[in-house]
């Protein structure tokens, strides 16, 4: 038994071998991120503005075609400081993760937060910090900075 187990453990799952389709609105949204713009989907029927974007409105089930640019600064709706990883190992540097929301917009983005800890509070104002080299991914935003 003992001799067999290590061999079984060598099997690795193919969990990285997938393509994921962001969908037409998601694609336009990611193109916006690449340009340094954060947008939200807007439902023509019920007026719901939401993020992340989908081609269906989660509120009224209508098909959604529009994206609108979000010009106002987002705010911190919740946050956590991660001190240890899933296996209980202490991180060399704790990281802050937040739920980033925009006023009047349903949903939001989960992302890394940086900035002075004394400003870390629910409701704190944020601004996105984009990477200089961008490829159309949520990680084109390096983090949201507390302002």
């Amino acid at each position, binding site marked *: 038994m003992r001799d067999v187990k290590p061999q079984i453990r060598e099997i690795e799952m193919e*969990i990285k071998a997938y393509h994921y389709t962001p969908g037409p609105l998601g694609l336009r949204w990611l193109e916006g991120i690449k340009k340094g713009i954060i947008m939200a989907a807007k439902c023509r029927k019920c007026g719901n503005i939401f993020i992340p974007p989908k081609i269906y409105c*989660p509120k009224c089930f209508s098909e959604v075609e529009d994206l609108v640019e979000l010009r106002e600064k987002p705010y911190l709706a919740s946050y*956590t400081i991660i*001190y240890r990883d*899933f296996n*209980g190992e202490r991180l060399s540097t704790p*990281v802050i993760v937040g739920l980033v929301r925009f006023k009047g917009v349903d949903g939001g983005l*989960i*992302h890394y937060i940086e900035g002075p800890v004394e400003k870390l509070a*629910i409701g704190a104002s944020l601004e996105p910090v984009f990477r200089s080299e961008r490829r159309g991914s949520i990680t084109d935003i390096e983090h949201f900075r507390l302002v």
Partner: protein
Amino acid sequence: MPKIALVGMGYTGFTRSSEHLSFREMVYQAAVKAYNDAGGIDPRRDVDAFISCQEDFWEGVSISDEFAPDQLGGVLKPVYTVTGDGLHCVANAYMMIRSGVADIVVVESHGKPSEIISMSDIVWFSTDPIYVRPLKLPNPHALQALEARVYMRSRGLRREDLGLYVIQSLGNALLSDRAPYAAKLDLDGYLEAEYVVDPLTAYDIARYSDAAIVAVVASEEIARKLTDQPVWIDGVGWATEISTISMRSMEEDVATKLAARMAYDQANVKDPRREFDFAEVDERYSYKAIQAIEALGLARIDTVASDLRDGSFSRSGSLPVNPSGGALGEGVPLEAHGLARLLSAYEQLRGRAGRAQLSDAEKAVVHGWRGLGTSSSIVLVLSR
């Protein structure tokens, strides 16, 4: 309308690891005990259908439902798999019997997390691949910590309150034979613990355990033939909130609230705070159990914190919650966790909870949740 009952349950495990048995062999052991408990039924002859709750990624086997029949005695019989908490299996059995397609249905769920080497990766793999997963957060529990902070703030719950819950649950678990993490803990000990994902410490996050649980569900007619102690399933409800985490309310557990409403309507429960003798709730996180207590209507939004401080949910309180411990003491055997809650309720209602037996146990509410990052809840109303 004819009633539906639990007539037998069996389990194996509730250990940190169980190396000597495969998960299928664990299910076999649990099934043998459940069939014996149900008056000695023979699954090859007496059972109409079988339902299994499992998830391919937990098994490390794709299309793992194909592996479900043998160890239950279900070969050449109707068998299917539900990807949900074990209690979702019970809901399906309930529907099959109520609709008349079966009179006796076996449900099983199991978890062997000790075999999963890349648990963190699998958990993270359940997040949205476009908007969340690329962030590679070092600890996926962070997603629940975001909710914990919002919930605690909205209800005035402090760190000490989570501590009270944890101390109570780990203490209750000392009365259980199924709780490898049971402990006698005091508030100082709790407060000394460092945060893992602020505001949650390691005490607030349930660990894993290996277990398999099997239950036999039957129509009233069959139940009365098999046992003189049927546990009636008076209502079943389930609901799922939205898949996008950032769109969820976080201030309340909406899915549990809706699931409870559905189950209470069937069971004609009007005043849950007075009608139930005890509750079994998911406590994969300390705060989540408190949120469930409230969503089940067992506490009011404005008094859930003071009720907790008053000891209302302790074994001697007005509504004991997890009187023989919950996930914090037992560990989480993945999708079997809901059946672990069902098992505890079943034992209480039959007067077989041993040292954990409550003096008054006639009617209970049982709650399940699918865990980290999910918003699927299920609620059962049971009576003896």
